[in-house]
């Protein structure tokens, strides 16, 4: 009961929370005083960062209230049988709200329309960290907390029903919020009747039994996205649409060059402009607040700010050498069998190649936006952040407030794909609102969004492997260099994004470490280990492949640009190099690329997705390049790639078919075939949407996308200087084969297909033309150069 009280004081319930409560049959006062309900609290689950020990199920009158700084989350079943579920995993566009609703409806056997989901509001929902990876991480599926809470509630309802109906729990069945006796359906009782006017306060039971997949009726089906009718009719409230009484509009003024700092701000330059309320300067953070957005934009353009020169940027044209040679480094030895050098020395053939991947950006279609209402000692921020709790803690630092006095309410922003401007713009709005003493909305300009976001990291990757006389790989070495600066702010580093740094906070310090310590356990979270490596630590092998001899070493160096997670961070880059190189090895061994992969794999699930994609593509088994290549005209070819994402989080294989115009170097992807296995499928249509979208985003990243700069500043700041494949391009046909494994662990799927695209396309270009492209993006100039370099 306390949780309502806490939620209402000192901060008010949001209108949608109130309406959700009403929909669930509660008014706040009624709920506290009279209404019956069955609640399951998640307080024992603890914050995402500190998983707490499970506690036994207990129906306790007045369960202990959660710690003061932590809001309990719960499932509530009202006296009318309606269900409200609170979750810390938000809907960023990947279908998570629909899937979580399915999850609750399934466990409780209630119709979907009786479940209301409230997500990501620090006043209500638990700290479940960030919702990341387009649902690629199992925790995002919420199959522990939320489903376990629902299962706890179902078991309690069955116990109540057993007593009520004079039967044992295993004689009962539930459907549509009614529990009945299996062989005597006339004997039944509804959830509403069971709850009645009573209150049941339960603690989440880690041992409550989930409904087996064989009994699923709603989960596992292609339930339609619950948000779409509002989205496609312009009724949906994005964070951009949040409006508060008395709200003003802010615009930030970012430095003209990387590293430039404020010398002087001439407020008089805008003082006569209509609607201008205030110029705000805090260290190097500069912004303008006005009555209307257009006034704020004009004032920010007009404001005279004198900046120091920038600190300079490394040469764009020699960037990859710069990364390779930079000191100091932070080194990570992911795997070292200590015999790779010796095995390579004894190999019949040794192959070497270097691959390059540029910085790329999230480039959300809508520039980032947030609304903040900061008062003397408290603040409310409507934010598109992936993590409301980390945003609360770091916004409190930026504002100099106590975290418990800051409330962050998630509102969907424009497509996320990782750390876009969501967190930084939330600080922007908070700082401007604090200065103005009124609610302020900030939407970044296109340029401010693109020139200062935390880019996906560039990579240089050296691959070296040896083949024996039979064409089997005997050893594989991978060494990479990638730059890093900033990242997710977490709970204490607002300086990891541009606004925090401008306002005086430092990014996470670079911690040099060389040589790297010995690997103690197998961790392929970054997909630095190729799929064909056995991954042995001591006597145990954890990888998906058969090659026992391997050395996998990564170097981080300091970055001149902000970096952060971009859909398949690092994994896409590593996989591009490894799966391209695997193709080079297959060609050297004169083996079919699919068969060559299969004979170096020992994980049958990875083999099966590979075979599924090849079968769908009607794969023509033969070595690459295809026989009888002519060096002119349009050439066609096919390429393949596969991965176990993060080493444990989703199997995928992809076949790409391309056309290469050999006179222009233009590459067109005609068809793609994906095989995907992420364990149990909760919503096959939502899953297909993710695989398709990932595949196409991968095509754009492989063919076009690259951040560029001069000696002072980033030059990719709009859609002409950073290109993205538009709706008008002739999209390839995409066929997705889903392998459902209802009884396996749930894995992610948001980042599987995108991880494979660059390598599958590069391999297809090689198949079509015999030219190998080792640098992303595959621009016509680059492809043409590779074609011209053919012997």
């Amino acid at each position, binding site marked *: 009961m306390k949780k309502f009280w806490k939620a209402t004081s000192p901060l008010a319930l949001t209108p949608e929370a109130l309406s959700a409560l009403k929909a669930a049959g509660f008014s706040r006062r009624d709920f506290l005083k009279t209404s019956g309900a069955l609640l399951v609290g998640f307080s024992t689950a603890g914050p995402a960062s500190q998983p707490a020990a499970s506690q036994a199920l207990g129906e306790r009158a007045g369960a202990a209230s959660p710690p003061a700084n932590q809001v309990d989350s719960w499932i509530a079943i009202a006296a009318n049988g309606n269900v409200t579920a609170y979750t810390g995993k938000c809907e*960023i*566009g*990947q*279908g998570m709200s629909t899937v979580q609703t399915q999850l609750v409806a399934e466990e409780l056997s209630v119709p979907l329309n009786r479940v209301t989901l409230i997500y990501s509001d620090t006043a209500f929902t638990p700290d479940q960290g960030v919702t990341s990876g387009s649902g690629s991480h199992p925790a995002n599926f919420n199959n522990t907390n939320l489903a376990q809470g629902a299962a706890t509630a179902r078991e309690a309802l069955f116990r109540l029903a057993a007593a009520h109906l004079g039967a044992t729990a295993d004689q009962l069945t539930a459907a549509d919020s009614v529990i009945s006796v299996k062989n005597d359906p006339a004997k039944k009782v509804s959830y509403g009747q069971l709850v009645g006017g009573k209150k049941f306060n339960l603690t989440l039971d880690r041992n409550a039994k989930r409904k087996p997949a064989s009994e699923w009726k709603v989960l596992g089906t292609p339930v*339609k*996205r619950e*948000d*779409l*009718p*509002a*989205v*496609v*009719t*312009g*009724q*949906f*409230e*994005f964070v951009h*649409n949040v409006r508060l009484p008395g709200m003003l*509009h802010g615009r930030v003024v970012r430095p003209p060059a990387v590293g430039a700092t404020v010398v002087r701000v001439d407020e008089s330059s805008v003082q006569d402009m*209509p609607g201008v309320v205030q110029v705000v300067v805090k260290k190097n953070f500069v912004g303008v607040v006005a009555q*209307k*957005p*257009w*006034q704020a934009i004009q004032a920010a353009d007009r404001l005279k700010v004198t900046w120091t020169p920038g600190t300079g940027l490394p040469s764009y044209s020699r960037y990859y050498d710069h990364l390779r040679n930079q000191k100091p480094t932070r080194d990570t030895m992911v795997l070292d069998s200590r015999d790779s050098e010796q095995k390579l020395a004894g190999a019949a053939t040794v192959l070497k190649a270097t691959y390059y991947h540029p910085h790329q950006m999230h*480039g*959300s*279609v*809508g*520039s980032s936006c947030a609304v903040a209402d900061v008062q003397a000692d408290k603040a409310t921020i409507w934010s598109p952040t992936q993590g409301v709790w980390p945003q609360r803690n770091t916004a409190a630092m930026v504002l100099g407030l106590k975290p418990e006095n800051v409330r962050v309410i998630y509102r*969907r*922003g*424009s*497509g*996320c*794909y990782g750390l876009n401007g969501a967190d930084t713009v939330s600080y922007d709005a908070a700082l401007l609102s604090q200065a103005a003493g009124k609610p302020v909305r900030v*939407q970044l*300009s*296109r340029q401010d969004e693109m020139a200062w976001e935390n880019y996906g990291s560039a990579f240089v990757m050296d691959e070296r492997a040896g083949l024996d006389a039979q064409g089997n790989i005997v050893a594989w070495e991978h060494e990479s260099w990638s730059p890093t600066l900033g990242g997710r702010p977490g709970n204490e580093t607002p300086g990891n994004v541009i606004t925090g740094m401008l306002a005086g906070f430092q990014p996470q310090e670079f911690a040099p470490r060389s040589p790297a310590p010995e690997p103690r356990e197998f961790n392929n979270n970054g997909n630095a280990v190729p799929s064909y490596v056995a991954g042995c630590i001591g006597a145990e092998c954890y990888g998906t492949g058969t090659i026992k001899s391997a050395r996998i070493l990564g170097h981080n160096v300091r970055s001149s640009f902000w970096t952060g997670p971009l859909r398949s961070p690092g994994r896409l880059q590593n996989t591009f190099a490894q799966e391209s190189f695997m193709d080079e090895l297959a060609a050297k061994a004169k083996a079919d690329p699919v068969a060559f992969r299969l004979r170096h794999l020992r994980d049958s699930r990875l083999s099966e997705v590979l075979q599924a994609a090849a079968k769908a593509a009607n794969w023509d088994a033969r070595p690459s390049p295809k026989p009888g290549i002519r060096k002119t005209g349009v050439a066609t070819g096919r390429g393949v790639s596969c991965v176990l994402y993060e080493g444990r989080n989703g199997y995928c294989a992809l076949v790409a078919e391309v056309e290469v115009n050999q006179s222009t170097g233009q590459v067109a992807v005609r068809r793609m075939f994906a095989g995907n296995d992420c364990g149990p499928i909760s919503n096959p*249509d939502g899953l297909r*949407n993710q695989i*398709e*979208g*990932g*595949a*196409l*985003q991968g*095509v754009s990243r492989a063919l076009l996308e690259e951040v560029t700069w001069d000696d002072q500043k980033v030059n990719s700041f*709009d*859609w*002409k200087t950073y290109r*993205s*494949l*538009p*709706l*008008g*391009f*002739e*999209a390839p046909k*995409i066929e997705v084969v889903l392998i459902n494994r209802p009884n396996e662990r749930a894995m992610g799927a948001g980042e599987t297909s995108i991880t494979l695209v660059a390598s599958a396309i590069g391999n297809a270009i090689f198949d079509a033309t015999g030219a190998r492209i080792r640098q992303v993006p595959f621009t016509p100039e680059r492809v043409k150069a590779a074609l011209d370099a053919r012997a």
Partner: protein
Amino acid sequence: MSVITLKVNGRTHSLDVDPTTPLLYVLSDDLELRGPKFGCGLSQCGACTVIVKGEAIRSCSTPVKDVEGVEITTLEGLGSPEKPHPIQQAFIEEAASQCGFCVNGVIMTAEAFLDKNPKATEAQIQQALAGVLCRCFTHVRMHRAIMRYAQGRA
């Protein structure tokens, strides 16, 4: 500031605004419409598209004074969640969205084009969307939804 008369979705509004203000800001901030969205402010992405005199225009770079008195249709003007327009219904049927931010530009551009070119081929429809971006890359489903709608109205 001066008083401007705008006709939006069949309603007339008199607004005291700077006449050089881009239409988008008036629609989303003065009239609090949620359909048209700020994407780039440069006419490069399509998120702000509205239909004026049958043409899809970029409201982020159209001064409000240029559309005074003419009928403006926004995404809200096509249909509602309860009674969606057939093109909106097609997007629901095909689940043609991920984050949904770009959907306004896709639907409004396609709708204006198909109204003028009811017999357009798939390639022509695609060409009409050359300046519209979706960064979730829901392209395949969006094409499918538009074709479903185009075939349904033919």
